[in-house]
């Protein structure tokens, strides 16, 4: 028999059994859902920690300043959108991947503390992901969304915003994979930067090189495949197609238009981006479940 002198009972013990039995019955069909509830509790603290960090606020203000500046540079909002597209597709993946990687390593203590609690490892990684993705998405919605709503509230503007949000989520996912897979912080950030460098710059150069080298062959369909394999390229093409300037892209552009310009094409692009967001996370969860802390 335990002494109850100074131990505070949290709830009336005699009712506890009955209460739990009832609860278990009610949730029996939603067991997976119930198991995910701790996630939201944790996401709250992850978000709290991120929002205390001034970098996200700075990032939001930076995006806001750039967007407003570009829209004010010329009277034609479409020109503003094109410039914004080029900057957003470089900057948002870079900031997302670097910030998410650094944040993960800096939360190591937090993660260690959580791992000793009665929660699943997978809940910890998904909470980090949700916290980071929602904080950075919020920054994009404010920093790019508000100017777009003010200056270019049309399908093109919307597609640019959606593409940027999509890329933000994708690169948070890739960042978590990079951080979970490497133990050392410097190495992790290096891997994250390399991945960004590859997807944002090197990949395009390689594809261009292939195109010139194999210019005599019909490469349109292959190009479509290449574009789909890179989230940044895919986002860029989908937004450009909304801008009616695909005529500048020649035969390949025509094929893109035929495929990616339709609603099916947009759905396809969204699905590919979704895969890019989910697959690295699933991989990260797999690694993290077996990681020694």
């Amino acid at each position, binding site marked *: 028999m*335990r*002494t109850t002198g*100074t*131990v*505070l*009972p*949290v*709830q009336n*013990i005699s009712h*506890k059994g009955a209460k739990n039995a009832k609860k278990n019955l009610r949730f029996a069909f939603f067991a997976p859902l119930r198991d995910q509830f*701790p996630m939201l*509790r*944790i996401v709250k*603290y992850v978000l709290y*920690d991120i929002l*205390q960090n001034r970098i996200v606020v700075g990032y939001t203000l930076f995006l806001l300043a750039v967007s407003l500046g570009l829209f004010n540079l010329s009277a034609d909002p479409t020109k503003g959108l094109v410039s914004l597209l080029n900057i957003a597709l470089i900057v948002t993946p870079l900031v997302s991947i670097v910030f998410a990687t650094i944040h993960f390593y800096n*939360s*190591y*203590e*937090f993660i*260690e*503390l*959580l*791992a*000793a*609690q*009665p*929660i*699943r*490892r997978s809940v910890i990684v998904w909470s980090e992901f949700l916290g980071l993705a929602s904080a950075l998405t919020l920054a994009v919605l404010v920093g790019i969304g508000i100017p777009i709503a003010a200056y270019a509230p049309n399908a093109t503007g919307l597609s640019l915003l959606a593409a940027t949000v999509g890329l933000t989520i994708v690169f948070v996912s890739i960042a978590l994979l990079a951080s979970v897979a490497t133990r050392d912080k410097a190495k992790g950030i290096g891997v994250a930067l390399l991945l960004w460098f590859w997807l944002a710059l090197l990949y395009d150069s390689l594809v261009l090189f292939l195109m010139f080298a194999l210019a005599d062959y019909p490469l349109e369909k292959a190009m479509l495949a290449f574009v789909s394999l890179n989230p940044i390229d895919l986002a860029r093409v989908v937004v450009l197609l909304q801008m009616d300037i695909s005529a500048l892209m020649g035969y390949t552009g025509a094929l893109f238009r035929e495929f990616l310009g339709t609603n099916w094409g947009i759905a396809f692009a969204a699905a590919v981006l979704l895969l890019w967001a989910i697959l690295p996370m699933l991989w990260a969860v797999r690694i993290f*479940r*077996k*990681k*020694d*802390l």
Partner: protein
Amino acid sequence: MLESTNLSKSFGKMKALDGISVRMNAGQAISLVGPNGSGKTTFIKCLLGLVIPDGGDVTLNGKHILGHWDYRQHIGYMPQIGRYPDNMRVGQLFDMVREIRRGTFSRVDEDLMRAFEVEKFAHKTMRTLSGGTRQKVSACLAFLFDPDVLILDEPTAGLDPLASEILKEKVLAEKTKGKLVLVTSHILSDLEELTTDVMYIIEGKIQFYQPIEDLKARTGEDKLNRALAHIMKQNAAA
């Protein structure tokens, strides 16, 4: 109650745990002793699921724990170095852990929080706390949910004498309630006060695991430190 069979873990070429099989029962308080780097902390972390063993098995009350998570509700863990999110306030930390464990505990035990007067520094952020104060926070967290198993890694290191006494009294009180307590420490006098059994780990293997009384009788010494020194000397000679 808590049992490991043939538990092994390597970090690269180094064997941190090399086939550890032990059975630990409720009401036992066990000292985990061994030289630095002998595998004590790795063993503890395997029990907690923080380190995933390469081979072997661990059960708590007959249930396998590897790959599971809910068994951790029965364990209170005080790490060697309590590391917490820098920006979090002490009060928030307690709120968070309570929120995470909501539904997994039936009572809270705030004895230590009162004894250490946690509310006096509840508004401070973790970054500003001294090492000893962090240890107090770690201790409070370990005991907070009235767990059946207490795992304390170097609990008194860094605590002032008063806090150290408070913590030791608490450990003894929990032991008499029939909990399993596992303590590592290099302060042998503390261990002699707190524990009933001693488990000596060296190079990832259990050298011996027996009641302190038996150890003393075997070596003919009346103090734990002397008895251990006796055994180490024997080992060195062999």
